[in-house]
């Protein structure tokens, strides 16, 4: 049987080939409507007959090639198919003839004439001429192979004849030849032998029955053998090989190759090994074809997605037979099945993980290049759930082929990559969303279970489930030898905990990670993740009412000019268009942290910490050096206070600054009104809770400011009066004042009988006093620093040790 024709469909079978074409076109329709499952069933029905027809193509008439034209004429085929799939056989045959006129026919004609010439020369034993013709023919053959035509049947028959002629020639005859013609004879002989050896089966077939070889027997087609014949396989492998050889080369028409492979997917149906091979070649090729464009076209992406799903399905089905893993050894020959291991499982070199990863990356790229405010963005975002499903399916597959003990080994790395992707798909979501993604993710994977973390059951507590999920995913990553996994997992975990209001866990992890000391040496995406986690931690501290912590954490990023870059949310330099690479680093919009909210939180925290201090300083008392003054806040406030005319507040910053000056003037209620009329708080989950928290803070800080401001004007302050002024219970006022007295912030004493605060007027500092005191303070600091240096800075190191231990004890 000719391999060449094996690839085409004979006239008699055009109906079935039509069916196949029909299914292809349908597939396209389906793909565009993003329904992935039907295609398979559709093809399954037709697959048997397709295989049968492939075996029986016998005619060497020109018409055949066209029926299954490939390559450049692919588009013709599809249009042809679309127009005619309902037509009668004869008509489509006629159409086929038109289509046929391609380079391939020319090639075949040429080959045919060459074969004729060779036959003539063979008969007269004119070896030199024969060799030249033979060389030409071989060149054409390589060409034919490049065009996925396989080895033409006539070539095989020619070789077979040639071989028998050569073996008939006796030694005497050879000796009688002239030197050059003897050389030519030998070369021919070698080449023929080699070909015969390589393609013994076909030759054998031809020899056994030359007639039958040229004319397919009808009975064969009716046998409906489920497996494709060897010839077909060879043809498939050859096509794959040709494509493989051109991988990465320039001037290769990738679209054409993709089309070819799409066809091969159909051919390989029924043979799992080949299906796997074809998919493993097709999907990367698809990704490659769009590597030059900014993001992958959606239709290509969807196709790739469907193909990965199909591949995973196959792998799932044949798990006990074939396994695709990154650690398999490459086979010498493309089509050769790898050796089975002791369990009878054959390992194929390849990586589903890489494919899924790439799919996710492409989605991200596409999101990056889409306008986030358009509906397309939301539409595109919906694809994330499918990607998540795939990640999950892939994870389960890897879990089934990798031993749990090997998770931290090299083998586990592919699993770790999937898990990391999964984590990256989850960490920025609130628990509710995580639960939803989990539910959607598992919906297609009923009656399966993960070893790493079970699926969500209705009875589970949502928060606990999410914590457990994130913890288990991360702990798998912590076991990896590659530190990048650990770092990323750590940061994702911190981000998750911060985002979901578990401040202490997040903070402890952050301190234990010690990333802050090495992060500047990491690559940029990791630094961005670090900054994101840090900022989230600051926001979390704010929500928990820990203003000092929040302000300290946020300070560096919030006061930076490059806030946007630091968080991977765009660039501040407008004049320079961002490069492609810069753009790719950006975080997709749906993962952004609201910068205005961030500013608002930072400024509010600074306000509450700074205002009492500012008043304290301006009232002439020594300021405690505990808190480092935030210059940026003071600068803005100064600028604001200097303005001649202050309009009604518009921006968030305006509101906060107005609140600050109100608090300075002692009008705490006005201040809290300004703050709570900022709309952006509603972006927090429990906005009312946060406003309440802020209200309380404004009460106490207002009280503190009031006392600082009025310390020189009063001799006594009534606790009752203060309580009513700041709407606080008297006990609270007493507590606040006691704290101020105890910490030496004011010199005063409480009077239990009169329920009043006695402000002592012992001393008012002159300038000299003040300077002398601060000089003494400085000296003390210097001495302390010296001591710390002399002791080798062990203090900071020992805390490091503690943190490390904390990690290990987790």
């Amino acid at each position, binding site marked *: 049987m000719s391999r060449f024709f094996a690839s085409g469909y004979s006239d008699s079978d055009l109906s079935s080939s039509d069916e196949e074409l029909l299914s292809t076109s349908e597939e396209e329709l389906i793909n565009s409507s993003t329904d992935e499952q039907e295609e398979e069933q559709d093809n399954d029905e037709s697959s048997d007959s397709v295989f049968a027809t492939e075996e029986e193509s016998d005619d060497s008439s020109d018409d055949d090639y066209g029926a299954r034209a490939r390559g450049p004429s692919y588009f013709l085929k599809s249009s042809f198919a679309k127009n005619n799939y309902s037509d009668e056989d004869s008509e489509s045959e006629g159409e086929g003839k038109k289509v046929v006129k391609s380079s391939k026919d020319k090639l075949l004609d040429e080959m045919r004439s060459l074969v004729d010439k060779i036959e003539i020369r063979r008969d007269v034993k004119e070896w030199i001429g024969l060799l030249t013709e033979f060389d030409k023919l071989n060149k054409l053959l390589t060409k034919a192979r490049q065009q996925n035509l396989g080895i033409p049947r006539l070539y095989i028959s020619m070789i077979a004849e040639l071989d028998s002629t050569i073996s008939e020639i006796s030694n005497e005859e050879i000796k009688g030849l002239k030197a050059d013609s003897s050389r030519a004879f030998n070369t021919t002989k070698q080449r023929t032998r080699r070909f015969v050896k390589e393609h013994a089966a076909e030759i054998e077939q031809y020899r056994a029955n030359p007639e039958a070889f040229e004319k397919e027997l009808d009975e064969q087609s009716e046998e409906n053998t489920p497996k494709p014949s060897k010839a077909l396989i060879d043809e498939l492998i050859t096509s794959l090989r040709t494509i493989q050889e051109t991988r990465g080369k320039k001037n290769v028409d990738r679209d054409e190759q993709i089309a070819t492979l799409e066809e091969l997917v159909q051919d390989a149906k029924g043979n799992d090994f080949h299906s796997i091979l074809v998919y493993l070649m097709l999907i990367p090729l698809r990704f490659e074809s769009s590597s030059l464009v900014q993001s992958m076209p959606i239709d290509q992406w969807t196709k790739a997605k469907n193909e990965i799903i199909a591949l995973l399905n196959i792998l799932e089905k044949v798990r006990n037979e074939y396994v695709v893993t990154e650690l398999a050894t490459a086979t010498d020959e493309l089509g050769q099945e790898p050796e089975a291991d002791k369990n009878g499982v054959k390992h194929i070199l390849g990586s589903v993980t890489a494919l899924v990863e790439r799919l996710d990356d492409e989605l991200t790229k596409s999101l990056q290049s889409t306008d986030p405010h358009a509906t397309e963005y939301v539409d595109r975002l919906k694809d994330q759930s499918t990607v998540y499903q795939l990640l999950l399916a892939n994870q389960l597959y890897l879990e089934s082929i990798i031993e749990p003990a090997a998770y931290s080994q090299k083998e586990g790395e592919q699993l770790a990559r999937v898990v990391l992707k999964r984590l990256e798909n989850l960490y920025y979501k609130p628990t509710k969303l995580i639960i939803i993604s989990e539910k959607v993710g598992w919906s297609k994977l009923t009656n399966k279970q993960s070893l790493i973390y079970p699926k969500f059951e209705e009875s589970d507590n949502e928060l606990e489930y999410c914590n457990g999920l994130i913890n288990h995913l991360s702990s798998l990553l912590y076991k990896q030898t590659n530190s990048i996994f650990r770092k990323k997992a750590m940061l994702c975990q911190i981000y998750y905990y911060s985002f979901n209001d578990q401040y*202490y866990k997040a903070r402890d992890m952050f301190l234990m990670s010690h990333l802050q000391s090495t992060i500047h040496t990491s690559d940029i995406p990791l630094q961005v993740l670090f900054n994101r986690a840090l900022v989230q931690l600051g926001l979390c501290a704010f929500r928990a009412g820990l203003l000092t912590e929040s302000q300290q954490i946020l300070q560096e990023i919030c006061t930076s000019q490059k806030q946007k870059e630091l968080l991977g949310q765009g660039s501040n330099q407008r004049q320079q268009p961002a490069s492609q690479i810069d753009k790719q680093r950006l975080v997709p919009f749906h993962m952004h942290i609201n910068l205005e909210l961030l500013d608002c939180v930072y400024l509010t925290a600074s306000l509450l910490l700074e205002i009492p201090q500012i008043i304290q300083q301006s009232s002439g008392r020594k300021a405690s050096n505990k808190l480092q003054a935030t210059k940026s806040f003071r600068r803005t406030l100064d600028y604001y206070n200097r303005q001649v005319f202050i309009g009604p507040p518009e921006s968030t910053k305006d509101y906060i600054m107005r609140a600050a000056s109100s608090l300075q003037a002692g009008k705490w209620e006005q201040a809290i009104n300004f703050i709570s009329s900022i709309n952006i708080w509603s972006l927090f989950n429990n906005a009312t809770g946060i406003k309440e928290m802020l209200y309380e803070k404004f009460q106490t800080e207002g009280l503190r400011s009031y006392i600082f401001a009025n310390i020189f004007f009063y001799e006594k302050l009534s606790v009752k009066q203060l309580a009513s002024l700041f709407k606080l219970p008297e006990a609270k006022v*007493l507590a606040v004042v006691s*704290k101020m007295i105890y910490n030496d912030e004011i*010199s005063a004493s409480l*009077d*239990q009988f009169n329920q009043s605060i006695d402000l002592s007027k012992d001393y008012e500092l002159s300038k000299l*006093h003040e300077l002398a005191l601060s000089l*003494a303070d400085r000296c003390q600091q210097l001495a302390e620093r010296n001591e710390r240096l002399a002791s080798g800075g062990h203090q900071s190191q*020992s805390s490091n040790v503690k943190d490390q231990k904390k990690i290990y004890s987790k």
Partner: protein
Amino acid sequence: MAQLTPAEIEVAKKFDLTSKIIPFLDRHLIYPLIENLDLTYDEKTIKDLSYNLLKDTYMNKFINDLNPDKEISQDVLKKQKEIEAKSEVLEAETKETLNLLSKKEVQEQLKSDKNHNRRYLESQHGITENKIHALYEYGQIQYNKGDYVMASDLLANFRILSTNNELNVSSTWGRLACEILLLEWNNALEELSKLRELIDSRTSFNDPLLQLYNRTWVIHWSLFPYFKTANGLETLCDLFFSSSYLSTIQASCPWVLRYLVVAVISNNSKKLKDLVRVTAQESYQYADPFTNLIKALYLDFDFAQASQHLNDCEVILKTDFFLNNEDENLPLISKKFITNAKKLIIQVYVKCYGRISLEALSETLNLTKQELKDLISSLDLKNATLDDEKLIINHTSTKIYQQVSDKVKSLGYKSNQLLENFAK
């Protein structure tokens, strides 16, 4: 001891640390803890607990006493026989070694170099590695049988001879347990310092996690001797406030803060500031009346709350194994703690208030006026006038000259010291 009211039992149960401490102790060490629960739990629970605790040890008679109703199963009997047989064999084996070691001429030959000793004993007296190891095993069995004196002795001998580092550490642990159970506190302290040396030396542990575990054990075990010896609490403060142990407490056993609070306050230690810092830091993961007391007093300045917590502390002082020290030779820790805590509250109070009504204060602190007066006079306050109704303190802030000179006074000395250190 007086019975507790149901409310008090509730408090005691709520803040009972036994279950948290148990994982870090040895079986035998847990027994006294469980025995101590008699105030909070009924007799039967305690008996069951002790039976479950000890049934895997070899103290057969003792176990049977605990559990007279139940039949002794065949397995247990069989196991007991096996142990008997094994210990007989080991006894014979070790007897020779021990006899040898007690001979004078042998002792004279032994030097500080272990390797030398080993060669000497092996060539002259035929004491091999196995025989030395038998000492260890026999010691273990004796310990399990409850013969702590013998066990301690065997392990001490083993440690002299053995060169196996790991077993040496574990034999030191064994000796420490024996000494604790024998109530030989000074010996226990000695063993403890040996252990600390072993654990804190950088070379002994490659795995920081293992070191962390060992430190956690040390922290828990050390509670036994420190609370029973005269200067124990001071040493305890020193140990627990050393940076590596403090971080161990923070990382793996924050409940130990309770003992730290007691130690600092009852001892009038100068580490109060550190204590406040640590309790504030850990308040998110551990809180009991003791830490709450600190928090209420030094962070929230809520005196009523503070004295409330102090009341709860009193209950716990009665029920906690380490704190209800009834040794007559030692000053009662619980009493000391309560008095000192009250003094601290008054100190803070006095610092904030200029004119104090004794009536109100005695109410908040739950004291009679006379007691309060005594306490105040014991504080030895400056510028204070005390009469029947009120306490008036004249808060005069120190003069600026005084302040500046106070601040710089120590600088010269400190710098000199620094220089000297460098010169060394």
